[in-house]
Protein backbone atom coordinates (compact mmCIF):
# COMPACT_ATOMS: atom_id res chain seq x y z
CA UNK A 1 0.00 0.00 0.00
CA UNK A 2 1.46 3.32 -1.03
CA UNK A 3 2.41 5.50 1.90
CA UNK A 4 2.07 2.77 4.49
CA UNK A 5 5.49 3.25 5.97
CA UNK A 6 6.33 5.40 8.95
CA UNK A 7 9.45 7.17 10.08
CA UNK A 8 9.61 8.28 13.70
CA UNK A 9 5.80 7.94 13.88
CA UNK A 10 5.04 10.01 10.79
CA UNK A 11 3.70 8.52 7.59
CA UNK A 12 5.87 9.12 4.56
CA UNK A 13 3.61 11.19 2.34
CA UNK A 14 5.71 12.43 -0.54
CA UNK A 15 5.80 10.76 -3.92
CA UNK A 16 9.35 9.64 -3.21
CA UNK A 17 10.30 9.60 0.46
CA UNK A 18 12.68 6.68 0.50
CA UNK A 19 16.19 7.09 -0.86
CA UNK A 20 19.21 4.79 -0.93
CA UNK A 21 22.52 6.53 -1.39
CA UNK A 22 20.60 9.57 -2.68
CA UNK A 23 18.56 7.64 -5.25
CA UNK A 24 14.73 7.63 -5.12
CA UNK A 25 13.31 4.19 -4.45
CA UNK A 26 10.13 2.94 -6.14
CA UNK A 27 9.70 -0.05 -3.84
CA UNK A 28 11.00 -1.18 -0.46
CA UNK A 29 11.29 -4.87 0.40
CA UNK A 30 11.84 -6.52 3.75
CA UNK A 31 13.00 -10.13 3.69
CA UNK A 32 11.70 -10.43 0.12
CA UNK A 33 8.27 -8.95 0.84
CA UNK A 34 7.27 -5.61 -0.65
CA UNK A 35 6.37 -3.33 2.26
CA UNK A 36 6.19 0.02 0.48
CA UNK A 37 5.53 1.38 -2.99
CA UNK A 38 6.10 4.98 -3.96
CA UNK A 39 3.07 7.20 -4.44
CA UNK A 40 2.28 7.62 -8.14
CA UNK A 41 1.37 11.23 -7.32
CA UNK A 42 1.93 13.44 -4.31
CA UNK A 43 -1.14 12.99 -2.06
CA UNK A 44 -3.57 15.82 -2.66
CA UNK A 45 -2.78 16.04 -6.37
CA UNK A 46 -5.84 16.79 -8.51
CA UNK A 47 -5.76 14.23 -11.30
CA UNK A 48 -8.54 15.40 -13.61
CA UNK A 49 -11.83 17.24 -13.81
CA UNK A 50 -14.65 15.85 -15.92
CA UNK A 51 -17.59 17.96 -17.08
CA UNK A 52 -20.56 16.84 -19.14
CA UNK A 53 -23.79 18.29 -20.43
CA UNK A 54 -27.36 17.09 -20.66
CA UNK A 55 -28.11 15.81 -24.13
CA UNK A 56 -24.40 15.38 -24.92
CA UNK A 57 -22.14 12.34 -24.91
CA UNK A 58 -20.10 10.89 -22.05
CA UNK A 59 -18.12 8.30 -24.00
CA UNK A 60 -14.86 10.27 -23.73
CA UNK A 61 -14.75 9.46 -20.01
CA UNK A 62 -14.63 5.78 -20.96
CA UNK A 63 -12.02 6.30 -23.67
CA UNK A 64 -9.90 9.47 -23.49
CA UNK A 65 -9.91 9.98 -19.73
CA UNK A 66 -9.30 6.32 -19.01
CA UNK A 67 -6.42 6.37 -21.49
CA UNK A 68 -4.92 9.59 -20.11
CA UNK A 69 -5.30 8.73 -16.39
CA UNK A 70 -5.20 4.92 -16.17
CA UNK A 71 -3.88 4.83 -12.59
CA UNK A 72 -7.00 6.60 -11.33
CA UNK A 73 -9.31 3.82 -12.52
CA UNK A 74 -9.64 0.31 -11.13
CA UNK A 75 -10.89 -0.74 -14.57
CA UNK A 76 -12.13 0.85 -17.76
CA UNK A 77 -15.55 2.48 -17.21
CA UNK A 78 -18.40 0.53 -18.78
CA UNK A 79 -22.06 1.22 -19.50
CA UNK A 80 -24.90 -0.13 -17.44
CA UNK A 81 -27.27 1.60 -19.86
CA UNK A 82 -26.88 3.35 -23.21
CA UNK A 83 -23.66 3.90 -25.11
CA UNK A 84 -22.71 7.51 -24.44
CA UNK A 85 -25.60 9.60 -25.70
CA UNK A 86 -28.87 10.01 -23.73
CA UNK A 87 -29.89 7.97 -21.83
CA UNK A 88 -26.59 6.55 -20.63
CA UNK A 89 -25.09 5.49 -17.32
CA UNK A 90 -21.36 4.90 -17.16
CA UNK A 91 -20.05 2.86 -14.24
CA UNK A 92 -16.72 4.25 -13.07
CA UNK A 93 -14.61 2.35 -10.53
CA UNK A 94 -11.81 4.42 -9.03
CA UNK A 95 -8.59 2.77 -7.93
CA UNK A 96 -7.59 2.71 -4.27
CA UNK A 97 -6.09 6.04 -3.31
CA UNK A 98 -8.22 8.04 -5.74
CA UNK A 99 -11.52 9.71 -4.87
CA UNK A 100 -14.10 12.25 -5.98
CA UNK A 101 -13.08 15.41 -4.14
CA UNK A 102 -15.56 17.74 -5.80
CA UNK A 103 -18.95 17.33 -7.43
CA UNK A 104 -21.11 20.06 -8.89
CA UNK A 105 -24.56 19.55 -10.30
CA UNK A 106 -25.92 22.60 -12.09
CA UNK A 107 -29.33 22.53 -10.38
CA UNK A 108 -28.34 21.20 -6.98
CA UNK A 109 -24.99 22.82 -6.21
CA UNK A 110 -21.62 21.63 -4.98
CA UNK A 111 -20.28 18.92 -2.69
CA UNK A 112 -16.63 19.70 -2.07
CA UNK A 113 -16.11 18.81 1.57
CA UNK A 114 -15.94 15.04 1.21
CA UNK A 115 -18.63 14.55 3.86
CA UNK A 116 -20.39 11.25 3.37
CA UNK A 117 -18.07 9.96 0.66
CA UNK A 118 -14.99 7.83 1.04
CA UNK A 119 -11.58 9.23 0.18
CA UNK A 120 -10.38 6.09 -1.54
CA UNK A 121 -11.75 3.99 -4.37
CA UNK A 122 -15.39 3.10 -4.82
CA UNK A 123 -17.75 2.90 -7.75
CA UNK A 124 -19.76 5.76 -9.20
CA UNK A 125 -22.54 6.05 -11.77
CA UNK A 126 -22.01 8.89 -14.23
CA UNK A 127 -25.40 9.62 -15.70
CA UNK A 128 -26.74 11.65 -18.59
CA UNK A 129 -30.30 12.08 -19.87
CA UNK A 130 -31.77 14.43 -22.42
CA UNK A 131 -32.22 17.29 -19.91
CA UNK A 132 -30.46 16.04 -16.76
CA UNK A 133 -27.08 14.75 -15.57
CA UNK A 134 -25.56 13.60 -12.33
CA UNK A 135 -23.11 11.50 -10.37
CA UNK A 136 -23.99 8.88 -7.77
CA UNK A 137 -21.86 6.78 -5.48
CA UNK A 138 -22.89 3.24 -6.32
CA UNK A 139 -20.75 1.19 -3.92
CA UNK A 140 -17.92 1.53 -1.47
CA UNK A 141 -19.90 3.24 1.28
CA UNK A 142 -21.20 6.71 1.88
CA UNK A 143 -22.90 9.00 -0.58
CA UNK A 144 -22.38 12.39 -2.14
CA UNK A 145 -24.17 15.23 -0.36
CA UNK A 146 -25.59 16.65 -3.57
CA UNK A 147 -28.30 14.91 -5.59
CA UNK A 148 -27.31 12.37 -8.21
CA UNK A 149 -29.48 13.80 -10.98
CA UNK A 150 -30.62 17.33 -11.82
CA UNK A 151 -31.13 19.77 -14.65
CA UNK A 152 -28.34 20.65 -17.08
CA UNK A 153 -24.66 19.77 -16.67
CA UNK A 154 -22.41 18.34 -13.97
CA UNK A 155 -18.72 18.11 -13.21
CA UNK A 156 -16.52 16.22 -10.79
CA UNK A 157 -12.88 16.23 -9.81
CA UNK A 158 -10.74 13.18 -9.00
CA UNK A 159 -7.92 13.65 -6.51
CA UNK A 160 -5.20 11.32 -5.27
CA UNK A 161 -5.42 10.77 -1.51
CA UNK A 162 -2.79 8.05 -1.26
CA UNK A 163 -4.97 6.21 1.27
Amino acid at each position, binding site marked *: MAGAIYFNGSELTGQHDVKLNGTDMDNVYLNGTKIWTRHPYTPGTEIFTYSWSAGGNINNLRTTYYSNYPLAFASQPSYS*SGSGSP*DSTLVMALADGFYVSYYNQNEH*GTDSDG*VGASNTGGTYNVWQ*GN*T*VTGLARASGGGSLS*VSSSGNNGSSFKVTYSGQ
Partner: protein
Amino acid sequence: MATTEQIAHYYEGFCRVVDNMNAGKPDNMTQASWEIHRTLNIDWLKEIVKADFWTDEDLTIANGLIG
Protein backbone atom coordinates in the same frame (compact mmCIF):
# COMPACT_ATOMS: atom_id res chain seq x y z
CA MET B 1 -17.30 17.80 9.63
CA ALA B 2 -19.92 19.76 7.71
CA THR B 3 -20.29 23.43 8.58
CA THR B 4 -23.62 25.07 9.34
CA GLU B 5 -23.52 26.68 5.90
CA GLN B 6 -22.83 23.35 4.19
CA ILE B 7 -25.65 21.63 6.05
CA ALA B 8 -28.01 24.42 5.02
CA HIS B 9 -26.85 24.02 1.43
CA TYR B 10 -27.37 20.26 1.50
CA TYR B 11 -30.79 20.63 3.09
CA GLU B 12 -31.83 23.13 0.45
CA GLY B 13 -30.85 20.56 -2.18
CA PHE B 14 -32.65 17.83 -0.25
CA CYS B 15 -35.88 19.85 -0.20
CA ARG B 16 -35.55 20.68 -3.90
CA VAL B 17 -35.22 17.00 -4.78
CA VAL B 18 -38.30 16.14 -2.70
CA ASP B 19 -40.26 18.92 -4.43
CA ASN B 20 -39.06 17.83 -7.87
CA MET B 21 -39.97 14.21 -7.30
CA ASN B 22 -43.39 15.12 -5.97
CA ALA B 23 -43.99 17.38 -8.98
CA GLY B 24 -43.53 14.48 -11.39
CA LYS B 25 -41.99 14.31 -14.84
CA PRO B 26 -41.27 17.69 -16.46
CA ASP B 27 -42.81 18.10 -19.90
CA ASN B 28 -39.43 18.45 -21.59
CA MET B 29 -38.01 15.22 -20.14
CA THR B 30 -38.35 11.93 -21.96
CA GLN B 31 -40.02 9.06 -20.15
CA ALA B 32 -36.79 7.06 -20.30
CA SER B 33 -34.83 9.90 -18.69
CA TRP B 34 -37.50 10.41 -16.04
CA GLU B 35 -37.44 6.80 -14.93
CA ILE B 36 -33.68 6.82 -14.40
CA HIS B 37 -33.70 10.36 -12.97
CA ARG B 38 -36.40 9.41 -10.48
CA THR B 39 -34.69 6.19 -9.43
CA LEU B 40 -31.37 7.98 -8.90
CA ASN B 41 -32.98 10.68 -6.80
CA ILE B 42 -35.04 8.29 -4.69
CA ASP B 43 -31.94 6.17 -4.07
CA TRP B 44 -30.02 9.32 -3.16
CA LEU B 45 -32.74 10.39 -0.71
CA LYS B 46 -32.63 6.97 0.94
CA GLU B 47 -28.89 7.33 1.49
CA ILE B 48 -28.65 10.99 2.41
CA VAL B 49 -31.19 10.71 5.26
CA LYS B 50 -28.62 8.42 6.94
CA ALA B 51 -25.89 11.07 6.85
CA ASP B 52 -24.49 11.95 10.26
CA PHE B 53 -24.23 15.69 9.66
CA TRP B 54 -27.93 16.51 9.98
CA THR B 55 -28.99 18.38 13.11
CA ASP B 56 -32.66 19.35 13.49
CA GLU B 57 -33.65 19.45 9.81
CA ASP B 58 -37.03 17.92 9.00
CA LEU B 59 -36.12 14.90 6.91
CA THR B 60 -39.59 13.38 7.21
CA ILE B 61 -40.69 15.35 4.15
CA ALA B 62 -39.08 12.56 2.12
CA ASN B 63 -40.94 9.76 3.87
CA GLY B 64 -43.65 9.55 1.23
CA LEU B 65 -40.99 8.97 -1.43
CA ILE B 66 -38.60 6.64 0.34
CA GLY B 67 -41.18 4.59 2.20
